[in-house]
């Protein structure tokens, strides 16, 4: 039972990541490979402020989201004007720079040793200890992220995002400041990813840089695309499928190192197959210029 709750909590954390990435990928049509970096930024901010400064859970999350939004603003300045492939390369660059910082700024992040002993979250006197309580918290986060993204994409703001996706020059011709729309949604997306990171740090109580690599970014992209980009339920389905799968492999009796590799083979192959057979994913609306 504990185990089932654990899997559900992971699905909720990944759901926050995928829904926030989908705001960029599915609704605005730009792919960012830096999502794991913002996820890590949230996790590290929360962990550091909680362990060294004793900042409470909600405070740490807000600081993390704020820093992620700020960093994403700085990141977007040079990169958001770039088109398609070049934007992907630029975000690749930021992913690797931020990973280098997690891994190499040893005075601050303890490098590959990671940060242990992150305290359990306390919200207004409610101490979250059991898996059951954590699942409730994680579900609140997932629903919250879902609602935010849902509100954005249904609003006039979201319509402009879709206009940018379909034809950016046309959106500009209608007098929309597309740059502002792109930067804003990039910041929202990064802040939501950071909140998932904080949640992860407090749940696992230990973080190290290996959780925030380029491959993690590619995993989140795969979840969005396999589930279906541009539709609120798509990323959720993708997260559920790709989180559950390696757990099933563990049941078959494979050690977790092998299961991790098999999961990577599986999502890599699935990504290729989906691209060939159905670029818009299982339930998606947008197929990347299909």
């Amino acid at each position: 039972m504990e185990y089932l709750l654990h899997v559900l909590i992971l699905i909720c954390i990944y759901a926050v990541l995928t829904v926030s990435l989908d705001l960029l990928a599915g609704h605005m049509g730009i792919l960012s490979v830096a999502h794991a970096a913002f996820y890590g930024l949230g996790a590290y901010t929360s962990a550091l402020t909680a362990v060294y400064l004793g900042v409470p859970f909600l405070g740490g999350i807000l600081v993390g989201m704020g820093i992620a939004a700020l960093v994403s603003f700085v990141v977007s300045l040079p990169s958001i004007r770039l088109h398609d492939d070049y934007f992907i390369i630029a975000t690749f660059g930021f992913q690797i720079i931020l990973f280098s910082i997690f891994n190499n700024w040893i005075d601050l992040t303890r490098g590959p040793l990671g940060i242990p002993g992150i305290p359990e979250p306390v919200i207004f006197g409610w101490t979250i200890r059991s898996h059951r309580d954590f699942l409730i918290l994680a579900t609140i986060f997932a629903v919250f992220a879902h609602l935010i993204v849902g509100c954005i994409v249904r609003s006039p703001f979201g319509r402009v995002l879709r206009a940018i996706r379909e034809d950016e020059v046309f959106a500009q011709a209608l007098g929309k400041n597309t740059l502002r729309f792109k930067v804003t949604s990039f910041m929202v997306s990064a802040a939501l990813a950071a909140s998932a990171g904080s949640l992860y740090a407090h749940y696992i109580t230990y973080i190290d840089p290996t959780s925030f690599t380029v491959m993690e970014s590619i995993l989140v992209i795969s979840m969005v695309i396999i589930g279906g980009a541009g539709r609120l339920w798509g990323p959720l389905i993708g997260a559920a499928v790709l989180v559950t799968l390696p757990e099933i492999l563990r049941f078959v009796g494979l050690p977790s190192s092998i299961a991790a590799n098999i999961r990577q083979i599986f999502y890599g192959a699935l990504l290729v197959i989906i691209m060939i057979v159905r670029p818009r994913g299982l339930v998606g609306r947008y197929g990347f210029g299909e």
Partner: protein
Amino acid sequence: MQILANALVSAAGYLLVGVGFSLIYTSTRFFHFAHGIVLTAGAYVTFILKVWSGFPLSISIFGGIIASTLLGIGMEWNIYRPLRRRNASPTILLLASLGIYAALQALISLTFGSGTKTFRSGVVPTGLLITGIRVTGPQIAIIVISGACCLVVWLLLRYIRVGKMIRAVACDPDLAEVFGLNRDYIIRVVFLIGSALAGIAGVLLTYDADMTPMMGFRVLLMGMVAVIIGGIGEIPGIALGALLLGLAQHLTAWWFSSRWQDAIVFVILILFLLVRPQGFLGKPLRKTAI
């Protein structure tokens, strides 16, 4: 001077990968991320032949390069060509190549473990002292072979019929087709040359140091940055870019610490994207294709 020599060795590796990557990019217009695994595969096949099967070194190296070439052409034939047939966008091709990369890298990790491997035997050579600079035999081989290969490709593109056809397709695929060039055939030739170069790079780099399943990706990213800052499709530009990266990396290692070698590359990339997105020698880019 020692730094210059080391920079030259690194640059030679990036140059080989960069030239192959750039050839493939100019003919197909998408970022072929799986190029990284082509390189890794060459190194590991050499390892299988030399260490597991006990073939002599020369045959193993030859086998490794052939295997890389076949892998590259296989990807083009089985995955990219069908995708192009249905007019897939560059983003879809890029995602598919990320999927291939993720799957094959995990496959290699699964088979060989994620630790380092080497196919060298005996003691590590201490290297020769040439006017006070210490270089090993393999390092000289890297510089000479990489330079020679790129010169051959450059001459081929300029003076040989197939090379001119490749440039025609890169310049304007539709017009080239009107003149009766078979685009699929040209792309196959390009994948053949590019993958062979990646295989050579893989074997040479592991002859100098060790191999890990992640090695290809790192070298590919560096090669890619060299291509972008040098100017896509311009071999002398790529050589300049690779040299700049090599120098920057080794100077960083000398002044600060080797830990920041990867980050500095992407800082350079982002500076270039801001100031001169077409690179040293590239032609100005069109902002959008309308």
